[in-house]
């Protein structure tokens, strides 16, 4: 091992992948390394809280002061604001630097960017909430299965075919719900390449609307189509397209079910061919609409406004599929009037 020259020492400090600053007792920044200089600007004449734009005054539990006082190392998590205005989460350590006489002359701080850890933390919290949400959703489904089984048994006992059928439908309905949740979870849990094939979007739309027509009618909702015959075929993942339309129609039905103020509800599925060869699919309903608070959160992972009746997976999967296609999903909504979701698939060369 060889001794470092001052020059070399400074270069090493400059190259450290974290912010290094040296402060005096009055919290003035005596020196900062390249990384700090680059992201927070010239420290000349500034205090540390000014440089890092923490706030107008010093931090409530000042690490520098603590290290000056007890000569020990301290740490905490903080949010700093860069010269460009970006907020970054950092883990800060302060450590006393002693002069030749053994007294603490200054305090050095290192701040490591932990934004990615913070992001992961957020995801984990979300995951926890999702699991709790799923458990509630499953409780409802269990109740449905319980009920279906009870009604089937009752029908068998009374030799009542109609009742057996009714009970069996309850069982199947709830079984489908479980299958869908499991499929959605699996879909979200891995990266996959879309299985691009030539599909006829209008046929997929007809297929999905046939699937939902009966359910919709049961709630007094009319399901109607407005299909552009120019949309003959497109390059898409057929399962993905099916999921997108299914999720949007299921949401539209929920929005109509929750709306108690209109006597007649209508859901319209539209297809349009763009001049650039893109295909746009819209699902419009005249249900409850989406209020402002919900609008901001609607595409967030696992977000649901439906209490124990939603899992927050539907639009999460929809958004993932649209991304995989290089497309986009947007919506416009007026509370009390209704909502229109628009999925745009860009043109794709065969």
């Amino acid at each position, binding site marked *: 091992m060889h001794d470092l020259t001052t020059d070399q020492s400074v270069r090493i400090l400059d190259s450290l992948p974290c912010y290094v600053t040296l402060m005096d007792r009055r919290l003035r920044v005596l020196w900062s390394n390249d990384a700090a200089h680059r992201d927070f600007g010239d420290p000349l004449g500034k205090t540390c809280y000014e440089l890092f734009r923490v706030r107008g005054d010093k931090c409530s539990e000042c690490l520098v002061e603590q290290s000056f006082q007890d000569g020990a190392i301290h740490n905490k998590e903080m949010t700093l604001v860069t010269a460009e205005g970006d907020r970054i989460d950092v883990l800060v350590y302060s450590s006393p630097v002693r002069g030749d006489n053994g007294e603490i002359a200054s305090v050095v701080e290192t701040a490591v960017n932990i934004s990615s850890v913070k992001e992961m933390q957020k995801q984990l919290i979300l995951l926890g909430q999702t699991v709790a949400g799923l458990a*509630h959703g499953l*409780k*409802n489904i*269990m*109740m*449905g*299965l*319980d*009920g*279906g089984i*009870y*009604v089937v048994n*009752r029908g068998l006992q009374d030799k009542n075919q109609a009742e057996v059928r*009714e009970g069996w439908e*309850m069982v199947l*309905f*709830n079984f489908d719900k479980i299958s869908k949740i499991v499929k959605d979870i699996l879909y979200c849990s891995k990266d996959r390449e879309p299985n691009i094939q030539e599909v006829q979007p209008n046929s997929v739309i007809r297929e999905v609307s046939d699937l939902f027509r009966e359910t919709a009618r*049961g709630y007094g909702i009319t399901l109607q189509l407005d299909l552009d015959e120019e949309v003959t075929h497109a390059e898409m993942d057929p399962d993905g397209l099916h999921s997108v339309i299914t999720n949007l129609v299921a949401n539209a039905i929920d929005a109509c*079910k*929750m*709306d*108690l103020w209109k006597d007649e509800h209508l859901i319209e599925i539209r297809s349009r061919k763009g001049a650039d060869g893109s295909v746009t699919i819209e699902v419009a309903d005249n249900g*409850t609409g989406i209020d402002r608070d919900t609008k901001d959160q609607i595409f967030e992972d696992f977000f649901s406004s439906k*209490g*124990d*009746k939603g899992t927050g997976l539907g639009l999460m999967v929809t958004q993932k599929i649209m991304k995989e296609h290089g497309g986009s999903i947007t919506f416009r909504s007026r509370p009390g009037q209704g909502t229109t979701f628009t999925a745009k698939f860009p043109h794709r060369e065969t």
Partner: protein
Amino acid sequence: MAKKILVIDDEPHVVKYITAFLEDSGYDTCSASNGEEGIEVLKKEKPDLVTLDLQMPGDTGTRFYRNMTKSKEFKDVPVIVISGIPGRHLAVSKPVAVFEKPIDRDALLDAVKKSLGE
């Protein structure tokens, strides 16, 4: 004469299940799919007990309860709350019993009998 129970839930399957079970247990039933309808059925059928889902769209379960307890005629009709989310029953000040979904049938029947003084 058999006692009559009003079942209020927005899920037709749940209504079917609970009414089927209560009928098998010897009660007459009537049902409603939201709170507004619930009030109408309440006035028409004059049930002896109500089972109420508190998580119906538009918060109509809570409103149903408020309207019911405001009326002289029905304010003492016992209410059994059936809910998927724990803690939601707090919206109802005096439920005779609270059940979480999925319900325990025997416990529900016990609660029904007790509230009807059987």
